């Protein structure tokens, strides 16, 4: 496999000396005898927006779930940086299909705040502020599950917002949305980024990756083929698989 053309560690030039945020070492995941991820070595810098690209079935969502801790790897390690105080980083995840609790939109946010340990009397104010930020204030008392797909995804983003995440994972957050809702989600990603959240996102939409990514992790058949700055990736990917993927010849 001479497709591995880059060291899988890439740090943005702005912060060459800073501690990496996340280090995956020799990560592998097998399920029922099938190897779904293999020999994943990946280092993420403290800042920026990483988009994990790859054809269907490459293991993009799985990689994110392992990093977020929703699944335990069958081999290798996931190592997160901590705050200077030793407090673990706060993480949140937005799923492809938003999971809405059977409660009002506002109560969905209050629940997340309660899970984060925010005092009862502060929850309502914080939740309302987040709903307003995402243009959902008028829907506060509506049951979350009767909202439209786009509104639900925005609510999922607002719910992640109240968690004030250091790291935000998004798993194909726009794949089921119309262009307007997709735009709202992408705007939200920028907002999170501006507030200092580290963004890690999967996508199979090349245009979206072009718009959002600072760096690209290109995944194929459970392996990292390359991890390069977005500009370099789209301009001149260094692996043949990535070239095929960009030209539409690599089908999952």
């Amino acid at each position: 496999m001479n497709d591995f053309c880059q060291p899988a560690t890439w740090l943005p030039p702005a912060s060459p000396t800073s501690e990496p945020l996340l280090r995956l070492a020799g990560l592998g995941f097998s399920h029922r005898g099938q190897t779904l991820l293999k020999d994943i070595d990946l280092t993420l810098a403290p800042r920026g927006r990483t988009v994990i690209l790859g054809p269907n079935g490459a293991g993009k969502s799985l990689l994110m779930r392992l990093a977020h801790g929703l699944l335990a790897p069958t081999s290798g390690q996931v190592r997160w940086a901590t705050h200077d105080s030793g407090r673990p980083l706060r993480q949140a995840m937005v799923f492809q299909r938003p999971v809405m609790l059977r409660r009002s939109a506002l109560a969905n946010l209050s629940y997340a705040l309660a899970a984060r340990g925010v005092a009862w009397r502060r929850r309502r104010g914080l939740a309302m502020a987040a709903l307003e930020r995402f243009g959902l204030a008028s829907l506060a008392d509506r049951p979350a599950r009767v909202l439209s797909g786009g509104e639900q995804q925005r609510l999922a983003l607002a719910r992640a917002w109240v968690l004030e995440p250091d790291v935000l994972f998004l798993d194909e957050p726009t794949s089921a949305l119309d262009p307007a809702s997709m735009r709202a989600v992408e705007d939200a990603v920028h907002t999170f980024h501006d507030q200092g959240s580290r963004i890690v996102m999967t996508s199979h939409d090349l245009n979206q990756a072009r718009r959002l990514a600072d760096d690209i992790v290109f995944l194929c058949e459970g392996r990292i083929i390359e991890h390069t700055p977005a500009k370099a990736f789209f301009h001149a990917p260094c692996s043949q698989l990535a070239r095929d993927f960009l030209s539409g010849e690599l089908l999952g």
Partner: protein
Amino acid sequence: MPDTDNAFQAALSLILGLDPTLLGIVTLSLQVSLAAVLVGALIGLPLGAALALWQFPGRGLVVTLLNAFMGLPPVVAGLLVYLMLSRAGPLGGLGLLFTPTAMVIAQSLLVLPIIAALTRDHVLTLWDEYREQLHSFGVTRLRAMPSLLWDARFALMTVILAGFGRASAEVGAVLIVGGNIDGVTRVMTTAIALETSKGNLALALGLGLVLLGLVALVNGTAYLVGERARRKLG
């Protein structure tokens, strides 16, 4: 059949005239069955949720037993409680046999498996949907339990109503452990059986009508709760 016609009229006048005997029997029936459902729900809801959330060796056996006990014949439940509470039984010293408390215990035994098994089904479905999101929030299984029970609240209300239906309609268990003592442990179902065999069709029919109305009310409520949930929560 003129006899039945007369009995029907007499039954109606008993109900409409709020006959004290009939009223006493109906009241005791409701007290016993509601208490049994309360006990069944207090144990069955967390038990069912726990069986959905935690894996442990022997869980399959427990779930199978619960499902089997949903069809436990009331007379067998009554017999089991009788054996426990009778003078020679392990709990004989409490002197509970032939008291309303014994009837509550017997009916709880009938209601508990229904509530626990159906709660497990509902919570499991919800947990499959919520698991990753709650895990992402950092919510432990223990903390997820009340959340899931709350989010399944409408489904669980119909489960509890089903339990109440079973408790209020059974004869065998309350007959064996209660003894159908007039004014003490006589409830609607046992009274109907007795009065019918004595030929006192008016009281039997009156109680039958009340019981029928109660069952209709329970089912109607269950239906409305389900509809409301569908409309409100999507």
